[in-house]
């Protein structure tokens, strides 16, 4: 019993050292260019396995273990790098999982020293939600950020991007791409272009009656007319002599009587009347 105590500490210390070494290896593998994703992921898996053996993460752990803060900080840092790695390799499901894990570290372990990368990672997560067009989730995440941090340079830029997307000021959106707060944001900003393009493509058939291919190229931010033509044929738009034609049977529709709806509604009313009796 008495002798087991220092042995316990020794065990904790060696675990921590082993984890530290692995983490350094992981960090170098991540920062290498080009990045070897399979090696990074293998190291990450080993690190996560080590974390499950950390004493502070045991279900009945005391809250004043001496190595607690080091373990928490190490685990948190690993997860931050994991998240950035997932952003680099565009593995969105893994990103979401690691982010969920990381959020627990940010919210619950308030007594440990706060992470310096917290707002960068939070901004990255917001940007990912925006690029995936998950606006509802974006807003719910946004509410969790305290208003003092909303002026933070990472968060503030992403909020602006959301505003541009919602308004439709795509030009401002594209310009903002050049002023990234961090290199990690680049992959998601490129994803944003695809999202924005899909948005515009949705708007075009409803807003235009006919559009020249040159104009469409400019609107859709393509580089060449061939790309636009290919895109248009994929979307099923009618192309003729360099013009895109959209038919909007607005007038006819507006004057048609919606027979189906009226019949359904009238039957509904008859139902209600019967019920009153």
């Amino acid at each position, binding site marked *: 019993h008495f002798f087991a105590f220092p042995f316990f500490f020794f065990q904790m210390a060696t675990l921590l050292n082993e984890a530290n070494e692995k983490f350094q290896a992981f960090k170098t593998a991540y920062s290498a260019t080009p990045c070897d994703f399979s090696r990074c992921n293998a190291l990450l898996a080993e690190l996560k396995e080590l974390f499950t053996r950390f004493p502070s993460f045991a279900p009945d752990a005391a809250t004043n273990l001496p190595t607690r803060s080091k373990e928490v900080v190490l685990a948190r840092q690993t997860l931050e790098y994991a998240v950035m790695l997932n952003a680099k390799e565009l593995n969105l499901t893994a990103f979401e999982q690691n982010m969920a894990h990381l959020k627990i570290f940010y919210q619950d372990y308030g007594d440990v020293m706060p992470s310096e990368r917290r707002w960068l990672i939070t901004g990255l997560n917001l940007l990912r939600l925006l690029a995936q067009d998950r606006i509802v989730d974006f807003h719910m995440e946004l509410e969790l950020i305290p208003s003092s941090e909303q002026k933070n340079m990472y968060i503030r830029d992403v909020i602006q991007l959301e505003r541009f997307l919602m308004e*439709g000021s795509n030009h401002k959106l594209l310009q903002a791409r050049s002023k990234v707060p961090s290199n990690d944001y680049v992959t998601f900003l490129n994803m944003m272009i695809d999202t924005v393009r899909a948005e515009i493509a949705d708007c*075009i058939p409803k*807003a235009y009656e006919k559009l020249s291919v040159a104009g469409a190229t400019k609107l859709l931010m393509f580089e060449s007319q061939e790309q636009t033509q290919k895109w248009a044929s994929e979307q099923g738009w009618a192309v003729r002599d360099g013009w895109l034609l959209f038919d909007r049977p607005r007038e006819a529709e507006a004057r048609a009587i919606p027979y189906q709806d009226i019949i359904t509604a009238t039957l509904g009313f008859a139902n*209600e009347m019967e019920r009153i009796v």
Partner: protein
Amino acid sequence: AAEKARIRAEANERVLKECNALLEPTARVRLLQLLRKATLCHDDLAKEIILNHLLRNYIHHNMYQEADLLVSNTKETLSQPFRSNNQMARYFYNLGRIRLVQLAYAEANDLFQQALRKAPDKAVGFKTVVTKMSVLVQLLLGEVPPRSTFRQPQWRHALLPYLQLASAVRFGELTLFNKVLQDYGDVFQQDSTYTIVQRIHQNVIKTGLRRIVHAYAKISLADICLKLELDYPEDAEYIVAKAIRDGVIDATIDHENGVLISTEIADVYSTAEPVQAFMRRIQHLTDTHNQALIAMRYMPTDEEQETKDMLEREKRLEEEKALEKALEEEDDMDL
């Protein structure tokens, strides 16, 4: 009288302190345990009260994900209609706030209106808060609430920033909107509505665009850019296209000439619009009627009153019998 006022103030402070204690994150565990117990005991009123406190706690800490999960899990267990009107009002308000953050504006508006109806007249503070939220939702839906909503004497002062906001939206002026945001930013922060007010930015542009399309049959995109005080002319085209797709305005863009041609249908009665408006109203009335029917319930049995009624009834029956007997005897005697 001063003594009474002092006692009342103390009681108020005590209640406030208790309520605020329930806002602590540590109170959540206890509240969840109580909710479990109340559900097992089928105690509907307790369930409502605890649920409202839990939702209030989550919303206070901006944990809308958790609040939404809680609502979806407990929806079926709540009795329809609620046992207490006050709890119902609070529940609708909390639910409305969750839906507001989730961008479900029509639903949120409905919920806030119901909360206002169910709240008692004396609850001025509650009504002020709900009116603020309902004003914001209406602005986000694109409708400007009538001036009378803001000018009620009870909350005229509190709603002043929101009145300014509504003016900015109504006239579609971005500069006024930004000014209001700057001047009253602290008030919005205190009301925890700042993020929502920022969302109204796009509504300012939409209303401005709508006014332009109503007024002009044909207008160049460059002019739209000037009128809406946008920074880039390219953006004007994107914004207009998005507005058309969203159904805010009815128009066509001519890209080559850079003009917007409005296709307003002059005669609304020739379209299906009136029919649909009628249907919506009839639906609303039948829904209200059905809800009123469902809400009717027998008065809860009052034991004392029942026994008293029974005793009275028995006494009356005895008297009648005695009277009958007396009448019979009289008849006998006569005979």
